[in-house]
């Protein structure tokens, strides 16, 4: 009996917080194929960014993602500092690292809670979000905001960490440690969680390489990839920490990687607080020279990449962003097929997807609901536009474009 049914997950579904569409083709309970459709939330951030001046873009890219809200500005300022060859004060680097690692803490705790929710374990959900709350409070204390911290600035950071805040922050980290121990125990020792997570949604090492996954998704498959180690930025080369690797590639491994990374993050923040030198926090940049720069940051979900090009004015003429989920979401095609619907629910969530960051433009014909524009069409369109501009500007070799 072969009876193919389509189970839609999305565009609006309790499983995911953001609009996206997974079309699961199922036979009984078994998923035999999956279609991934994204593009419901395209906001044109890159285009917007090209109409703002360099300092405003820092705030704009912060809005790309509500969870990695410091990774994007971090990558952007890295790109700008690469472009303008800026020497950032030492203290600013440490503050950036502390903020980035605190973001990793709250992001991983958030994912852990969601993962619990997706396998029907609401107690884990509520508990892990409860222990995430003190970290948000620390953010509020240091930066004034719980979610969009606005700490990054080209050439430094916007606010200093006051000396009297440091003991409070250390105390919060000390309080978090037993909670992380508890979650580690709860996940590693619970036979029911093991039964649900072990051996499902497997992405082995070769598949992970083929599908170019990044971040914890790749590290759970045994790929030693971490921008913080491979291409150190911030103060990551000044502190001592380890890249967490698992080799199974299943959901359980992904969970373990994220939980163990919590320990590393806590250790990094502690070391940074101890080693942080006194001094300036801002290099006071006035002008951005023409040129191009790239910035890479290990966001909680993986490598976040920003490319900025400047022509000497106060606006970027090109700003290219690649969020980590863009690489990871596609790997669901391998991981979710072959499992059951129950497995698919947690597998789709296990890459810690963030769809808003990922969206690309798609053009649909509303009558036939068919895609009328894909990547190649866009390239052709762009060539046509260049051709038109050439003609308008007089054409010939002297033309600027």
């Amino acid at each position, binding site marked *: 009996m072969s009876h193919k*049914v389509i189970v839609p997950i999305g565009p609006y579904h*309790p499983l995911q917080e953001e609009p996206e569409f997974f079309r699961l083709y199922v036979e009984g309970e078994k998923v035999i194929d999956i279609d991934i459709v994204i593009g419901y939330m395209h906001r044109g951030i890159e285009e917007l960014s090209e109409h703002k001046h360099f300092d405003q873009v820092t705030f704009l890219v912060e809005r790309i993602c509500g969870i990695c809200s410091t990774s994007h500005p971090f990558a952007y300022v890295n790109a700008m500092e690469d472009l303008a060859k800026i020497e950032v004060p030492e203290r600013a680097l440490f503050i950036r690292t502390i903020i980035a690692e605190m973001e990793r803490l709250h992001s991983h705790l958030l994912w852990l809670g969601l993962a619990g929710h997706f396998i029907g*374990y609401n107690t884990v959900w*509520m508990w892990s979000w409860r222990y995430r709350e003190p970290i948000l409070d620390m953010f509020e204390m240091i930066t004034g905001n719980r979610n969009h911290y606005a700490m990054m600035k080209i050439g430094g950071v916007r606010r200093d960490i006051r000396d009297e805040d440091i003991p409070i922050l250390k105390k919060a980290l000390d309080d978090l440690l037993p909670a992380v121990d508890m979650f580690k125990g709860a996940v590693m020792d619970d036979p029911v969680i093991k039964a*649900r997570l072990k051996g499902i949604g497997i992405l082995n090492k070769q598949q992970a390489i083929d599908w170019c996954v990044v971040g914890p998704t790749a590290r759970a498959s045994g790929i030693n990839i971490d921008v913080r180690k491979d291409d150190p930025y911030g103060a990551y080369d000044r502190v001592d920490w380890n890249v967490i690797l698992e080799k199974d590639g299943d959901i359980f491994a992904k969970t373990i990687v994220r939980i163990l990374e919590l320990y590393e993050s806590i250790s990094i923040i502690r070391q940074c607080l101890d080693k942080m030198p006194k001094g300036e926090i801002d290099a006071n940049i006035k002008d951005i020279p023409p040129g191009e720069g790239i910035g890479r940051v290990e966001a909680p979900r993986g490598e976040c990449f920003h490319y900025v090009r400047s022509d000497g004015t106060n606006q970027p003429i090109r700003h290219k962003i690649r969020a980590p989920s863009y690489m990871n979401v596609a790997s669901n095609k391998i991981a979710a097929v072959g499992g*059951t619907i*129950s497995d698919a629910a947690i597998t789709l969530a296990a890459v810690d997807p963030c769809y808003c960051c990922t969206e690309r433009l798609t053009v649909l014909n509303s009558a036939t609901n068919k895609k009328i524009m894909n990547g190649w069409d866009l390239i052709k369109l762009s060539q046509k536009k260049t051709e038109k501009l050439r003609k308008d500007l007089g054409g010939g070799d002297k033309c600027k474009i």
Partner: protein
Amino acid sequence: MKLLFNYLIFPGFLFSACIGLIAGWIDRKVTARIQWRVGPPWYQNFIDIVKLLGKETIVPEGAKLTFLISPYLGLLSLILVTTILGKSVILPLESFMGDLIVVLYLLVIPAIAIIVGAASSRNPLASIGASREMKLVLGYELPFILSVVAIILKSKGAIEIGQILNHQINFGSNLFSWSGALAFIVAIFCMQAKLGFVPFDMPEAEQEIMAGVLIEYSGLPLAIFKLTKAVLLYTMPLFLIILFLGKDLSPLFIVLKYILLLVIIILIKNTNPRLRIDQALRFFWGPMTFLAGAAVILAGLGY
């Protein structure tokens, strides 16, 4: 007239629904407290039902008549169980021959009603939910009936609830014997599955199939299903109390025992993730059936 009163008011529909809704509130409140939340006020479940009654009933295109009939079928048969159980607690001598068998049969009907209703709604998610519910019923019925058989054997072959209660009054509660304890463990898990609580809530798994079996229901039929669940939350623990803890059934003790069972249900619900349907089947046909079989053998040997 008296029968109608028993069926509709006490100990039937009205009484059991009220107790069930209050128990549902206890469940929600305790769950909320465990999860560091505040939880709803005590009348929340009542106003939920009242609100649903005021909503429009939407019938999906092409749905069969069974879509609307099945909720009532489930509730009516469940109330019958509640009435039989309630009456035999109050007047153990008035129970009739074989009422235990009737109760076992009627307890399956709500699950079947859900399956029929979901299958006739023509929604693929509902049909997946229905197939899960069907597998779940197949899973838990065997160990559940075996654990009841163990009690029947312990009570010298009585298939009458009154006699089982009498036997416990004379010889002590069934729970405090080897076979009774084993059968009780099995029955607890089967009760959890019958109630459709975590870890056995896969027919309704909201994160996977969006409330599955209930996805197409709205308004009155949905309220009826919710009421059925609420009454079940009263009936199943009561049934277990009668089978396993039937020594002292004075009002105070029955309330205490009921709360004990409710606490067990809530604890299991809050300390487990949802199982996959194949894991649930393996769990019931493997360890649970084995335990229940052991209980039957022990009961046969007189332990």
